[in-house]
C-alpha cells in the first residue's frame, strides 16, 4: 500500500514529475555517455600500448623492473615456463632477453634496445610479423636482425646491409656481433621505431653471453580482467622471493597518471552537473512537502505513525529519482553498446596523431557495468538524502498546525 501511494503520488503532479525526471535523465545520460566514451578511449590507448609490447603480465627476476640490468636475468627452465603458464587465462608464455647496445653502420652510431625473442611466440603476442615493412620476419635459427625503420634511416642502413652491435654482456663481458638486416619494422611510435632491434632469442643469448637466460617472461592473456585473475594465481604458483610479477598498471604509470588527471577534471564537471540536478530535485521535494502538509496532518490524525509516513515520502522521492535513472539507462545503455560494437573511426589529423603512436584510430565506448550502476547509486544517494527534509518535517509535524494551514 505504501508503495502504491508513493507511486501514485508521483503522478499527482505529472508535469513536475516529468520535468524533474527529465533533469535526472539528462544528468544520468550525460554522465554515462561521457564516462563511457572517456574510458573507452583510454581503454583503447592502454590496450594498444599493452598489446603492442608490454603484455598484461610480466615475470622477472626480483628487482629487475627497478633496475633493468642484464645481471638480473634468470635461467629459463621448463619448470618456470610451465608454472607461469598454469593459470587457465594464460594462453602463452613468451620469453624475452632485453638489453641496450650500440648499433653502428659506417661512421654512424646509435643507442638501441636489443630484444631477443622467440619469433613465433612473439608474433602471437604482439603480431610483430605484421609490422615487417620490407624484407622478412625472423626464424628461430636466424643469425640476423630486424630493425625499426627510424633506426635504419638514422644509420643510413638498408635491407641486406650489415649492422654492428656492441655492448656489455652478462656479468660485464664484452659483447659484439655483426648481423645482416633481414627486415625493417614499421612502428607507429617514433620511440620504438628509432631504437628497436630484434634478434632470435638464441642468438641474443649468445651475443650477451647469457646462455639459456632471459630477462622477462610475458604472459599472453585476453584482457585486464583475465590478467587480474592470472596474477592472483601466479602469486601462489611462483616463488615470489625469487621472481617478481609485474602487472600492466606498473608498466605504464605515466599513461595511467594522465588518465587520472583527465578523469578528475571530468569528475568536477559531473559534480557540478549533479549539484544542479540536486537543487532541481530539492525544489520539487520542497514544494511537495509544502503542498501536502494538510494531508500529512490527516494521516497522522487517523493514526498513521510518523516513521511510516516519513518512509512513504522517502520512497516517493527515491522512486522519482529512479524513474530518471531508468530513463537515462534506457537510452544510454543501447547507445553505449552501439558505439562499443561500432566504434567511430577517426579520420583526418586526429587519426594521424593516433597512428603516430601506434594506436588504433577509433573512438569506442566502454561498457563496464560500474559505469551504469554508479549513476544509479549517485541518484539514489542524492534522493535519499533529500528525502530527509520532508521526513524531518513529518517527524516534527503537529496535526493541528498542519491542518490549519
Amino acid at each position, binding site marked *: *500500500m505504501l508503495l502504491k501511494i508513493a507511486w*501514485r503520488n508521483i503522478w499527482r503532479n505529472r508535469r513536475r514529475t516529468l520535468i524533474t525526471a527529465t533533469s535526472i535523465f539528462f544528468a544520468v545520460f550525460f554522465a554515462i555517455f561521457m564516462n563511457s566514451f572517456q574510458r573507452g578511449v583510454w581503454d583503447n590507448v592502454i590496450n594498444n600500448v599493452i598489446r603492442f609490447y608490454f603484455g598484461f603480465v610480466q615475470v622477472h627476476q626480483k628487482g629487475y623492473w627497478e633496475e633493468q640490468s642484464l645481471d638480473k636475468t634468470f635461467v629459463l627452465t621448463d619448470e618456470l615456463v610451465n608454472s607461469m603458464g598454469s593459470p587457465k587465462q594464460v594462453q602463452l608464455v613468451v620469453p624475452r632477453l632485453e638489453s641496450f647496445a650500440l648499433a653502428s653502420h659506417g661512421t654512424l652510431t646509435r643507442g638501441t634496445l636489443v630484444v631477443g625473442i622467440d619469433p613465433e611466440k612473439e608474433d602471437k603476442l604482439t603480431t610483430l610479423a605484421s609490422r615487417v615493412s620490407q624484407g622478412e620476419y625472423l626464424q628461430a635459427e636466424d643469425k640476423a636482425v630486424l630493425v625499426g625503420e627510424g633506426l635504419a634511416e638514422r644509420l643510413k642502413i638498408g635491407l641486406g646491409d650489415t649492422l654492428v652491435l656492441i655492448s656489455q654482456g652478462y656479468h660485464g663481458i664484452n659483447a659484439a656481433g655483426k648481423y645482416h638486416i633481414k627486415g625493417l619494422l614499421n612502428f607507429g611510435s617514433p620511440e620504438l621505431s628509432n631504437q628497436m632491434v630484434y634478434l632470435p632469442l638464441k642468438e641474443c643469448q649468445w651475443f650477451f653471453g647469457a646462455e639459456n637466460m632471459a630477462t622477462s617472461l610475458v604472459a599472453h592473456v585476453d584482457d585486464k580482467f583475465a590478467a587480474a585473475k592470472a596474477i592472483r594465481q601466479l602469486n601462489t604458483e611462483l616463488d615470489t622471493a625469487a621472481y617478481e610479477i609485474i602487472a600492466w598498471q606498473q608498466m605504464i604509470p605515466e599513461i595511467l597518471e594522465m588518465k587520472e588527471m583527465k578523469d578528475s577534471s571530468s569528475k568536477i564537471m559531473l559534480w557540478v552537473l549533479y549539484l544542479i540536478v540536486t537543487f532541481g530535485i530539492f525544489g520539487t521535494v520542497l514544494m511537495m512537502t509544502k503542498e501536502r502538509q494538510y494531508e500529512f496532518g490527516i494521516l497522522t*490524525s487517523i*493514526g498513521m*505513525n*510518523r516513521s511510516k509516513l516519513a518512509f512513504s515520502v522517502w520512497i516517493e522521492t527515491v522512486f522519482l529519482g529512479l524513474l530518471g535513472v531508468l530513463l537515462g539507462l534506457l537510452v544510454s545503455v543501447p547507445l553505449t553498446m552501439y558505439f562499443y560494437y561500432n566504434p567511430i573511426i577517426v579520420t583526418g589529423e586526429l587519426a594521424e596523431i593516433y597512428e603516430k603512436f601506434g594506436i588504433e584510430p577509433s573512438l569506442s565506448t566502454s561498457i563496464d557495468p560500474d559505469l551504469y550502476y554508479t549513476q544509479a547509486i549517485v541518484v539514489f544517494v542524492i534522493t535519499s538524502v533529500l528525502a530527509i527534509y520532508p521526513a524531518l518535517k513529518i517527524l516534527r509535524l503537529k496535526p493541528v498546525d498542519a491542518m490549519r494551514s
Partner: protein
Amino acid sequence: MKNVISVSGITKTYNPKTIPVHALQGVDLEIEQGEFTALVGPSGSGKTTLLNIIGGLDEATEGTVIINDQDITKLSDGQLIQFRKEHIGFVFQAYNLIPVLTAKENVEFVMLLQGRSQAERNKRVNELMAAVGLSDKMNNRPSQLSGGQQQRVAVARALAPKPTFILADEPTANLDSKSTANLLDMMAELNKQENITFVFSTHDQRVIDRARRVVTLEDGKIVSDDHRDV
C-alpha cells in the same frame, strides 16, 4: 451507561507568552456510549479546540481527558497516534480523503495500518460502503466524488477500525442542504442501529435540530447542555 469521554477542568491558552488567547476556560463534559451530541456556539467559542483536545490532536493547558478509563493527557506522542488509530474516528470539515487512493482504499487504509487481514478488510469495506450508500463508488477517487459523497466516505473510514466514538468538526460546513440532510440521516442511522457515539460541532441549525444532546459553548465555557428527544 458507561462514560466513553470524560473531560474535566480543561483550559486551553494559546500563545501564553505573547498575546494569550484563552480558548477554553474550565470545561467539564461527560459523554456516554451511544450519544449523538452537537457542540454548538458562535465562531471562536472554542468548539474546534475542544474537539481537538478530546481527540488527542492538541494538548490542553490544564485538565484531564479520560477516554475509556485512560487518561490520554498522560500519553506520549507516539502512544497518542496509536490510541487514535484504535479508539477515535475523525471526520474533518473537508479534504478528509487521501487523493491518490480510491474510496475503497481510503476506507481500508486504517485497517491496513492495524494489520487486519485482506478478508476482514474486504468484508468491512463492503459493509461500510453499503451503510453510507456508496457501494457503487468503491473505485472512484475522491476527485470523482461530490463533497457530500466524500464526507460519507470519510465517515465510513472513521468507522472502519470500530472506534469508541467519532469526532466530527463541522462535517457539513461545505455541503449543500440536500447532502447535509443525507449525511445526517446516515449518521443518525448508524447511531441508532449500531449504537455508535458521535460528537460533532456545527453552526447549522438543521444539524442542531437533529442532535439528541446539544452542548453550547461561549467564550470557552459551556453555557448550556440540553438533552432532547428527536
